[in-house]
């Protein structure tokens, strides 16, 4: 094994159980590959060689747990998920040297399952962006073509999995930040239902929209990771007390008679033709597998972006107030007063995109504008929720493209934030409504770049989303095609 490109969690687990390899050997090889591959890719902000190897030795010494598939598996966390004793930056200058004193709940849960944390992956600063270009730590490249963006904001997590550096990574998704980079890198990414996974220890961007989820090469791996991280947490009052089912339970069940809704708005003007064609072919494949496909309408789709940018920026402007130079992080103390320190720290510490969103959010929440912007956007959110409720009355899933285009060139689209924001138009509604959404590879365009298909489920019905994705994956086996050549 040189990397994880042709492997999945179950296969690696079996080689650990039958003694073909050890956790130390796996970890060493992963680190070795990352150090060479990441020179170009830059998927990682921090690589924890020492911590990972020490952990691997401990896991080997304790003995491989045969019934625990995640035991000894090397993985990575997006660098906005706090890890005790391991630098966590949100890809921002303001947290450049910040070392958390506790673990996020998802980190604790995966540690209990026995994973090896290899390091922390790159992202757009504070998860604000769709290209990983706003990171303070430099641009991550696409695993398929180093002249293209990996998407974002979980661009480092997506590129690290797609390139075979790790078997899986966690990301966070506020408006598409797991699904869009998964689409751009040809892998599987799930944003769970709002409340399914604890947000404790996820550096808050937009608290009513943020969710943590897994990025993997296969659907089964994705469900396995969700099994480990889902569930109620008394540290997150928005986490759900609903029972957590086995997310692998419906994998392999056929999808005959399942009702698939295809919103006509998801194939509107802004969607690239090659993307539309590949996703339509994917939907035809679902039909061949027995699903019943209907065209539907989600009339408020086009207002999603506008509502999102007001709501998400408003919540961000409030959440990011805490970075003030007092208790941790960057602190610019050249001025005379406390007020000078606040202003100098924020001015120096935040990048342009973060400042822009803080400005938009502060404006939308300011006296005289609150009703016109923040409240109006929250009302439109209600209308969008009603649209989706109508669809799910008589459908099991909604299917369409994940993003309007494939990965674009580095530096190509960052001049006009409005154009950049349009990339999120197909993923944002899922966050506003709080639904689970998954991206899976549906094929490649003429330049050999992956095209993502999005499968959206009803609230807390990740099982059916995985069932459909798995049926599609088994029928197409697109995961066999890997960056740099076929399997």
């Amino acid at each position: 094994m040189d990397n994880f490109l042709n492997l999945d969690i179950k296969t690696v687990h079996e080689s650990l159980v039958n003694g073909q390899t050890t956790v130390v050997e796996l970890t060493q090889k992963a680190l070795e590959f990352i150090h060479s591959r990441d020179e170009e890719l830059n998927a990682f902000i921090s690589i924890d060689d020492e911590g990972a190897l020490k952990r691997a030795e401990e896991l080997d010494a304790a003995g491989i747990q045969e019934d625990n598939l995640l035991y000894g598996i090397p993985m990575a966390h997006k660098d906005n998920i706090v890890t005790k004793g391991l630098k966590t930056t949100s890809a921002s200058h303001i947290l450049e040297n910040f070392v958390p004193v506790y673990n996020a709940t998802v980190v604790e849960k995966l540690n209990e399952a026995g994973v090896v944390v290899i390091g922390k992956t790159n992202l757009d600063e504070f998860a604000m962006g769709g290209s990983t270009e706003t990171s303070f730590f430099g641009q991550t490249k696409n695993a398929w073509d180093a002249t293209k963006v990996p998407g974002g904001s979980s661009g480092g997590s997506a590129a690290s999995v797609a390139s075979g550096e790790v078997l899986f990574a966690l990301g966070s998704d506020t408006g598409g930040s797991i699904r869009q980079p998964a689409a751009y890198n040809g892998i599987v990414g799930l944003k769970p239902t709002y409340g399914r996974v604890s947000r404790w220890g996820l550096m808050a961007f937009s608290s009513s929209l943020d969710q943590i989820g897994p990025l993997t090469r296969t659907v089964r791996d994705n469900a396995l990771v969700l099994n480990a991280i889902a569930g109620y947490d008394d540290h997150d009052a928005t986490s759900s007390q609903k029972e957590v089912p086995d997310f692998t339970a419906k994998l392999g069940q056929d999808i005959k008679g399942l009702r698939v809704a295809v919103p006509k708005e998801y194939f509107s003007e802004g969607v690239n033709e090659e993307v539309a064609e590949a996703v339509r072919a994917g939907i035809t494949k679902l039909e061949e597998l027995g699903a019943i496909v209907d065209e539907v309408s989600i009339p408020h789709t086009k207002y999603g972006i506008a509502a999102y940018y007001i709501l998400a920026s408003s919540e961000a402007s409030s959440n990011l107030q805490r970075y003030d130079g007092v208790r941790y992080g960057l602190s610019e103390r050249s001025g005379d007063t406390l007020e000078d320190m606040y202003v100098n720290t924020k001015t120096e510490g935040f990048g342009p995109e973060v400042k822009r969103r803080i400005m938009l959010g502060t404006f939308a929440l300011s006296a005289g504008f609150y009703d016109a912007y923040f409240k109006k956007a929250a009302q439109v959110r209600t209308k969008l929720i009603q649209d989706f409720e109508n669809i799910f009355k008589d459908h099991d899933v909604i299917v369409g493209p994940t993003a309007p285009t494939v990965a674009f060139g580095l530096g190509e689209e960052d001049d006009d934030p409005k154009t950049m924001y349009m990339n999120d138009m197909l993923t944002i509604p899922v966050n506003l409504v709080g639904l689970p959404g998954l991206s899976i590879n549906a094929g490649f365009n003429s330049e050999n770049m992956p095209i993502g298909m999005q499968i959206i489920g009803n609230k807390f019905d990740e099982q059916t989303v995985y069932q459909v994705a798995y049926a599609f994956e088994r029928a197409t086996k697109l995961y066999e095609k890997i960056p740099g050549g076929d399997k």
Partner: protein
Amino acid sequence: MAETLSKQEAKHVAELAKIRFTDAELDVIVGQLGNILTLVDTLNEVDTTDVVPTYSVTENVNMFRDDVADNWNQKTDLLNNAPQQQDDMIKVPAILDGGDN
């Protein structure tokens, strides 16, 4: 809704946000926010009379827990993250002009 944001308004918002912009930066921001607000103005096409706003999609109502200290003995670790400390306390600059630290 205001169709655009004036430079004067942008200055006021920057003060609220405690971020300093140069004049040139502010011009760029005003232009970009103007573009975004034009997009946001399309929300006015939606009739939201009597529509209840959604601020969160959580199904939880009130969450209670026992008032028990948890994970509490971390003073040293937390202080180590402070940019400046003195006598086991976090040190900050003077709150008022001319005051001592």
